[in-house]
């Protein structure tokens, strides 16, 4: 059976136009030309999709690399990318049919051979950071000039969306072979723009790929991404006119954007979930009543108001409302109920409250979140202490050294939701501090989500999985952070996406 192919580009634009954000403005046809100047808050780790490691590299990568599978901005459903279609010949065989006429920036054709080269490199190269993504793939074969067949060791319908991430970004085999390690800094892809220069920590410049497969696009002649680490300074650069676009702003900056004349703010939900990870492998968090009490003790609306200026989506599940696999029923599981939390704690043997140690990042915004959490927990009798450090330090402390009962951190999301649940709750997974399966049903439920290729049956499988995770309170999600960007009036056609990583493929500049 074939996955229903998504809408094409024109239909997609029409859909965007129909959306609320742009409905009031008179829509002009996109104009070709112009350089978009962007203030970017991070320097990429590398510009090779296989070897890089930063979650914020994607904004740069998307300009230079097209993915085999694209995704719907609003729901993250898979859409045709460099692969026009895909289908499972049997549960262990995935066949991709490629888009004809695609060439890399260096003129190398992006055909089945090139795709095989990339997928094999992603699976086997010692420097590849995307090996875990393709763990279920046992071999990749060229089955036609534009057809690739992947053999799997278990049914895995998460693969199409996995191929919308780093693992599906195609690099030119010619360039990778010729440059070796230097491809990290001189990448050659098949995306709408090609790299001109990367001045470390300063600026990345890309220019139009003349042989891009869509003759209409890209609209922009090029993009200059100036790296300004401090988002307040980045926003100032747009207000003063040095840049046109700034992204990854904090909700608190909304007031500044609104005060500035001629600036448009863009906000949209993302998968980025601020949450409390729980080590459910040992006392006191191995008791489901304690974990439920924790979830009932949190007033998510208040948390949103206090730490996100009210500009985020309160979270009880690990997926936001607009996601295709969201289950509205389970979302009602934990209303704010301090009495119930106290009662559950008493039942669990803590009538006089209990002590919890929380790991947290040491930056100002994280500590602000911590203060709100500690105060809310105090009201139900949980006495929280904390220890702070940098992100790598705390991640190591909580997940490897097993320090702390709870970790106030975030989940950045994955293109396919099965990965989100697998990585956080699967037995032996890194982001599961206990390393155990909290309840025996969770393993089969996880497998079930990757068995069917039909989205509506996958949705049912996710509903079942979400029910297990939520009823056992294996995590305490707090809020989904909104993507917050600002741009000048002349920037047109920008839409945020649920992944929260900006794509400029449909952006154009007014004359």
């Amino acid at each position, binding site marked *: 059976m074939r996955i229903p192919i998504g809408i094409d580009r024109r239909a997609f634009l029409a859909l965007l136009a129909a959306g609320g954000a742009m409905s009031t403005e008179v829509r002009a046809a996109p104009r070709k030309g112009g350089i978009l100047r962007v203030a970017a808050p991070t320097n990429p780790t590398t510009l090779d999709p296989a070897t890089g490691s930063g979650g914020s590299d994607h904004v740069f990568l998307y300009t230079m690399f097209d993915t085999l599978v694209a995704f719907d901005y609003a729901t993250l459903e898979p859409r045709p990318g460099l692969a026009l279609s895909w289908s499972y010949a049997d549960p262990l065989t995935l066949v991709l049919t490629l888009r004809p006429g695609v060439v890399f920036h260096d003129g190398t054709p992006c055909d089945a051979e090139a795709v095989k080269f990339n997928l094999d490199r992603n699976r086997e190269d010692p420097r590849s950071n995307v090996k875990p993504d393709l763990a279920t793939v046992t071999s990749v074969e060229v089955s036609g000039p534009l057809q690739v067949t992947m053999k799997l060791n278990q049914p895995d319908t998460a693969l199409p969306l996995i191929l919308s991430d780093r693992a599906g970004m195609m690099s030119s085999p010619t360039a990778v072979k010729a440059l070796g390690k230097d491809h990290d800094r001189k990448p050659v892809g098949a995306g709408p723009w090609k790299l001109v220069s990367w001045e470390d920590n300063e600026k990345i410049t890309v220019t139009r790929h003349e042989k891009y497969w869509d003759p209409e696009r890209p609209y922009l002649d090029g993009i200059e991404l100036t790296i300004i680490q401090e988002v307040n300074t980045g926003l100032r650069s747009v207000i*003063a006119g040095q840049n046109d676009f700034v992204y990854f702003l904090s909700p608190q900056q909304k007031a500044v954007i609104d005060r500035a004349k001629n600036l448009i703010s863009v906000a949209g939900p993302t998968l980025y979930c601020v949450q409390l990870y729980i080590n459910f492998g040992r006392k006191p968090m191995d008791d489901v009543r304690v974990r439920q009490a924790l979830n009932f003790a949190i007033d998510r609306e208040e948390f949103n108001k206090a730490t996100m200026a009210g500009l985020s989506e309160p979270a009880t599940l690990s997926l936001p409302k607009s996601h295709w696999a969201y289950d509205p029923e389970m979302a009602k599981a934990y209303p704010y109920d301090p009495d119930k939390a106290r009662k559950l704690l008493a039942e669990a043997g803590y009538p006089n409250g209990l002590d919890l140690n929380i790991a947290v990042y040491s930056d100002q915004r994280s500590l602000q979140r911590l203060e709100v959490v500690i105060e809310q927990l105090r009201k139900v009798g949980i006495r929280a202490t904390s220890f702070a450090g940098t992100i*790598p330090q705390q991640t190591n402390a909580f997940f490897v050294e097993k320090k702390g009962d709870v970790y106030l951190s975030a989940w950045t999301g994955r293109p396919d939701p099965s990965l989100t649940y697998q990585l956080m709750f699967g037995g032996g997974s890194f982001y599961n501090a206990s390393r155990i399966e909290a309840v025996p049903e969770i393993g089969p439920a996880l497998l079930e989500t990757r068995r069917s290729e039909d989205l509506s049956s996958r949705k049912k499988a996710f509903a079942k999985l979400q029910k297990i995770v939520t009823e056992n309170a294996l995590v305490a999600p707090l809020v989904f952070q909104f993507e917050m960007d600002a741009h000048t009036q002349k920037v047109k056609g920008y839409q945020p996406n649920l992944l929260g990583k900006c794509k400029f493929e449909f952006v154009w500049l007014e004359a």
Partner: protein
Amino acid sequence: MNNKGQMIGRRLLQIAPVIVLATFVVFGLLQLVPGDIAVTLAGENATDARIVQIRQTYGLDQPFLVQYGHWLWNAAHLDLSRSYLSNEPVLDQILHRFPTTLLIVAVALLISLIIGVPLGIVAATRPGSRLDTVVTSFASLGVALPNFWLAMILVATFALTWNIFPATGAVAFGKDPAKALLHAALPAFALAAGGIAEVARQLRSALIEILSSQYVRTLHAKGLSPTAILWKHGLKNVSVTLLTVVGLLINRLLGATVVVEAVFAIPGMGSLIVHAAIHKDFPVVQGVVLAMVVVVICMNLLIDMLYAILDPRVGRT
């Protein structure tokens, strides 16, 4: 002249120990910074084996002194090695970014002198007058104002509200001198506030002392005009003081750029070292410290030589 030569020789001999001391202390401090560059380089889903492999590749598993010794040996052979994060040669990064910082420092110094010197003279020639009070209180204010605060006020006013100057970034002087100066103006002004104050105050007190000395009284008695006394005798005698102030000022400005570069998002030495220090990219940190130390020592040397020219007594001791 022979004595002057010895003095300069002594100064040159001090360079090596100062460099070793400065880079060693910084290297030691970096060890205290929490975090592990191997974990950063390995990325989010790294296996423990990959982290160990990265530690070995970069020699991070070796003892503290061995790592430092290795760096020093290479540096002595003019090899500043490569950045852990970007893999670019550190020397290239420094050569690329130092001009931006130097331009800001130079413009700031120039502004300090152009405004500070006349203010100092005016205040010194009319001590106790209302003008003197205004100048000295402004000078106190200039010293007291934190330059990052002033920088933000300047940005808010001249860049965000009036759009006269750019709020962020820098342009290479060689590429477009006018644009480069336009970008350097606000950061340089923010830095110069303290400089203006320092120059004006020091010049004022030195000049007052000289103008009230006995030989100036004699000059008055000989019938020389106050203007001639000020320009011919007064200023020549305060030039040593001024030189000292300038020397100290350059060192301070170089240090202060770290903060101001952050406010203006200027890709200079300050932002380079801050980013490197946070991520424990120690070859870059060491390289920047080395470059700064060399520049400061050279400036001090230059000023010492100028002392010797301006003040004949210096070489004799």
